[in-house]
């Protein structure tokens, strides 16, 4: 943590950046922090409660950050993948941000948690995560635990669902998706949902019915999943912020499996690696096409 604070202090005092975006101790656990003065650097923390994907703040949809000019952002390896996505999709110029990687051995599911990081408390998405540090980062600080082995419970749940008869799977998802109140928190928190105007808010035509009923809800969640195919970095934020507790991670994880199995693609923190949707191979599998 000293290393992180000293780096932040240096970046701010030397004028390299006008703000450092990291985490601090809040009244209810860890929370995102904007540090704009060298002295403020002492507020910064990094521990397993720092679950938030701060890459979300870099999205051009959030102009208040843009006003600060050049900023530094503290990133876990998964967050770095999101930054790579933003660079790849021309949302931020690489030279406008300083990326501070923190070594990470997994985080908790909940930033308010007081439990120590363990096999039982670790966020499910961290199980089997191979990355300990962000290759994209300009600076890497801290030390990391060994991480936690897979498979994740989600992967097991996906297999379990896949084994169900199709109508029981339908029932499972209808039970889940019917809870959706269409608050769009999943969209707002997603670092890669950066559209100026979301398709769900477009009324001519209205592809996605806006009132929270089961028919509009499934259309919305299918759309969200399709838009994240090959782009989702598995930061887990959509599921964390869902007020209804819908297991959105199962959908994003499933889509990630599909692009991995079919197109041998895994989200990368290298912006030069093209996303699988928007590219093609002439011999892509097409066993489902008659």
């Amino acid at each position: 943590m000293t290393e992180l604070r000293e780096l932040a202090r240096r970046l701010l005092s030397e004028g390299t950046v006008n703000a450092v975006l990291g985490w601090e101790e809040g009244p209810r656990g860890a929370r995102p922090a904007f540090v704009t003065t060298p002295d403020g650097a002492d507020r910064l923390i990094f521990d397993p409660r720092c679950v938030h994907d701060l890459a979300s703040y870099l999205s051009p949809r959030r102009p208040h950050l843009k006003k600060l000019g050049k900023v530094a952002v503290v990133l876990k390896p998964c967050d770095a993948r999101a930054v790579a996505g933003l660079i790849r999709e021309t949302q931020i110029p690489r030279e406008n941000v300083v990326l501070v990687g923190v070594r990470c051995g997994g985080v908790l599911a909940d930033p308010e948690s007081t439990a120590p990081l363990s096999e039982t408390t670790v966020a499910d998405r961290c199980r089997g995560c191979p990355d300990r540090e962000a290759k994209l980062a300009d600076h890497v600080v801290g030390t990391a635990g060994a991480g936690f082995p897979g498979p994740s419970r989600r992967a097991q749940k996906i297999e379990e669902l896949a084994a169900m008869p199709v109508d029981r799977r339908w029932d499972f998802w209808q039970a889940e998706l019917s809870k959706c109140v269409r608050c769009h928190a999943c969209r707002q928190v997603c670092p890669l949902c950066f559209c100026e105007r979301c398709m769900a808010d477009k009324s001519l035509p209205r592809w996605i019915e806006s009132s929270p009923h089961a028919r509009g809800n499934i259309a919305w969640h299918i759309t969200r999943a399709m838009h994240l195919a090959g782009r989702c970095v598995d930061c887990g934020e959509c599921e964390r912020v869902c007020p209804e507790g819908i297991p959105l991670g199962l959908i994003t994880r499933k889509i990630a499996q599909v692009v991995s199995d079919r197109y041998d693609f895994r989200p990368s923190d290298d912006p030069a690696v093209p996303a699988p949707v928007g590219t093609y191979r002439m011999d892509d599998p097409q066993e489902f096409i008659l």
Partner: protein
Amino acid sequence: MDSATPAAAGGFEPRITAFVCNWCTYTGADLAGTSRLQMASNVRIIRLPCTGRIDPMFMIKAFERGADGVIVSGCHPADCHYNAGNYHARRRFAIFRELIQFLGIDTGRITFSWVSASEGAKWRDIVNDTVTRVRGLGPFTAYRKLVVDPATVPAAKVTSKEVPA
């Protein structure tokens, strides 16, 4: 040709919406007509310039509007009038198909096919096979009921707090 006779004895007749590209499948369906190939009358074609133009939302909307099945068809690989529209569409469709399968929609309700401008007979077979298959699956009431009958939605058994940690 069982499938060619509509509404036999008042049985269930599926409503099928087809999204086809202008250059291959639409023209192939034209050829089926020119060749007077008889087929089931359940399919309504919506013409798009290219399979690349076919958005998964079209299929969702078709189900919302009461379609029991959907056909998506375009040019064979390497045959796209626009060079590569079908290659991009193929990836999009592959992901979409696995997604809706995961969400509990029977993928038997969607036929993906490549039908060239010279494959009138293949178009007839695609139409008849899809109609027969969807007739076997029955009406897609599950989707249609999503709004009209909230009571059919089963109560939540699990929450995400229980599923992934």
